[in-house]
């Protein structure tokens, strides 16, 4: 993809983000942070590419950096989604007796 197409996607996504986030109820701002944390770990994609390339073509160091990156991002992905799930499960409505 050329730079301008990427930039267009980025700018559009910033606008989407702006409107979507303003519509998040303030009561859920903490889960919002933990879930954004989890999804920003999509950076794992980059770590996977580095690790997958293996040791060929001078990639030995890159491979290990990638593997550590995978581990760190995984902490975040699993931890972020799990803690969000845990918090959201606590939000209950009034029981109608």
């Amino acid at each position: 993809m050329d730079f301008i197409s990427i930039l267009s996607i980025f700018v559009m996504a910033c606008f989407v983000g702006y409107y979507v986030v303003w519509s998040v109820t303030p009561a859920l701002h903490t889960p919002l942070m933990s879930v954004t944390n989890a999804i920003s770990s999509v950076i794992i994609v980059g770590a996977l590419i580095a690790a997958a390339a293996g040791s060929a073509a001078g990639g030995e160091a890159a491979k290990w950096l990638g593997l550590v990156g995978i581990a760190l991002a995984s902490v975040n992905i699993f931890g972020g989604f799990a803690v969000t799930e845990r918090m959201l499960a606590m939000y209950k409505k009034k029981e109608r007796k």
Partner: protein
Amino acid sequence: MHEAAPIPAWVALAYLASGILFILALRGLSSPESSRAGNRFGMLGMLIAVVTTLVTHEVASLVEILIAIAIGGGIGFITARRIAMTAMPQLVAAFHSLVGMAAVLVAAAAYLNPGAFGITDAAGVLLPVSRVEMGLGVAIGAITFSGSIIAFLKLNGNMSGAPIMLPARHVINLGTLAAIIGLVVYFYFVPAPRVDTPWLFWTVTGLAFLIGFLLIIPIGGADMPVVVSMLNSYSGWAAAAMGFTLGNTAMIITGALVGSSGAILSYIMCKAMNRGFISVIAGGFGAASDGDAAAASIDRPWKRGSAEDAAFLMKQAEKVIIVPGYGMAVAQAQHVLREMADMLKEEGVQVKFAIHPVAGRMPGHMNVLLAEANVPYDEVFELEDINSEFGQADIAFVIGANDVTNPAAKTDKSSPIYGMPILDVANAKTVLFVKRSMGGVGYAGVDNDVFYMDNTMMLLSDAKKMCEEIVKSLG
């Protein structure tokens, strides 16, 4: 990818799908009912992104990759299960630092093995555009990492919340930032950076780690909600920068979402504290509360009440609004507070909770703490939704909050909290104010006129003990 073989259409679409699922994950948070489905969308989006990457690359080291995922995932999952809800701000700060570090590692890997990322020209030299993206990615990632570590240490109490002020820090900070930007620009123009200037990339990385530390150490504990939100935003921009390097739609969309989300939360927090974003970044707030304000307050008459009085008054009331603050959570009083609210409801009293945006240690923190204590979320209201109701309330029950109820924010132009939106508890017929002692003042170090009003009764005790005694008297 800028140069290499074109990406098959389905791969591009898969990343787009995962980006859209991430948007839906945030969209779900517009109400508690839809939020859990939203979280599942997020998980699905992540799964699609990871699987797509793995099947479209020749994976030379699948076993190692799976082991890395298992180790990281296991640690993350167990931590998420065990963490106390009061410790959420620390956890989130720690998670931010990991995103930052992962961004640094990915950028470093791309620098060392650019061929694998398809960001080289025919001669195997890094593409200039990619160098800028990579330089920004590594810099933002490193700042996120070291800044979040400091935020974590401050929130976790390993480091004092007091600001650490270096002499000439503004000069040092601006100089370091300018150096980083200058080096990234230089990086763009070097003919073959890995041969001509092998030090450059690593210098940028090192300086960025340094500036992350320097930026956060002068920021006081009271401003941490802003800092955590700000670092949230940075972690997004770091992911977006790496998304540019890889030409990956999922990463770019996510980065933009997270970046805007953190920026909006920082804005909301700043507004709730009436602090300018620049002055938060400049740091120094909450250094040492000067004794003047506190000293002026001595010897004003105030009324003291007992748990029995409080129980009696609340039982007679038609409408009680509870105003919890972080002191309530520190005292672990949320469960017994909910018990108290339940007993009042059984007596036919209408009970509501009023939450100030900065009631906790991060945005929305108090809502989570109350939800954990089984307070139904439809009894919990935000400042702007409930503030007009204090006039009709018989009792405002303030517990563990102080500055957010202080009328000085509206009336006293010289007050450090002037302009901050407050909960108008003073409008209620009676104010019950739970506080450990008359001596201590809030974070901002200012005295609160509510203590001395005719219709205020001070309940001087530990928050949890007071609630327990009230529950006993109600029973």
